[in-house]
């Protein structure tokens, strides 16, 4: 399964989910981005890819984020990702929590992305 497929399968039912950036009208949503590190080299060819993922939860200040945070952590565990760390990046525009975790698949960077 590609990284995007895995992310959509795990988190797509929690909230509206968008890659990279979202500029629409939703107030509570998820955004993800990742970079890829090639691993498991043989004859100078990568045979696995490690994805370092940021999943951003945005919601208004008035909302309680706890149930969504828990759903994200559970989806990480159930979706084959590493356990996430979380950074609170909230500002005057709203709550913003950044979950960081990893995903791995075989076949190398060019076969799976």
């Amino acid at each position, binding site marked *: 399964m590609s990284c995007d497929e895995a992310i959509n399968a795990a988190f797509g039912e929690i909230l509206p989910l968008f890659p990279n*950036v979202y500029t629409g009208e939703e107030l509570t949503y998820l955004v993800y981005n990742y970079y890829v590190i090639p691993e498991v080299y043989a004859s100078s060819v990568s045979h696995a890819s490690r994805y370092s993922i*940021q999943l951003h939860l945005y919601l208004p200040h008035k909302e309680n984020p706890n149930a969504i945070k828990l759903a994200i952590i559970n989806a990480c565990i159930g979706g084959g990702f590493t356990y996430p760390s979380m950074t609170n990046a909230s500002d005057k525009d709203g709550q913003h929590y*950044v979950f960081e975790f990893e995903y791995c698949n075989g076949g190398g960077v060019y076969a799976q992305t």
Partner: protein
Amino acid sequence: MPRLDLSGFEELAAAFDKISNVPEDVQMKALTEMEEVAAAEIRKSGEAYGVRDPESPVHVLDSIKVNKPKKTDSGGYADVTFSGSRTRSGKQVRQAEIAFINEYGKKNQQARPFVGEAMNKNAEAIAKAGAEVILDWTENNF
């Protein structure tokens, strides 16, 4: 009948002895070398992500500071920081805050995790820079 052998414990113990004798100034030098590599890679990663704002005279990538390592009971540590601040729309903003917003993004602004990616992709090179200082000392002193 299969036979299992274990050997090399004396060499292993001798290697630990060598490491335990590495003086403080060599440990601090190793940390500084690691910091230098980390700072250069963070700067390079920031350039690749387009973190540099060409209109700003005092830029976040030019504020990356390699600090003097500090000793602890178990060894030491060193911080690579974003120092100083700059004026933005008439308001004073810390460079560390600008780096944070780039790293994690904000509403309507995509994250550019230039620090995390630099550290993640170059962990081996950063460790190697410190290891070379330690190995150089052990080879010249034993």
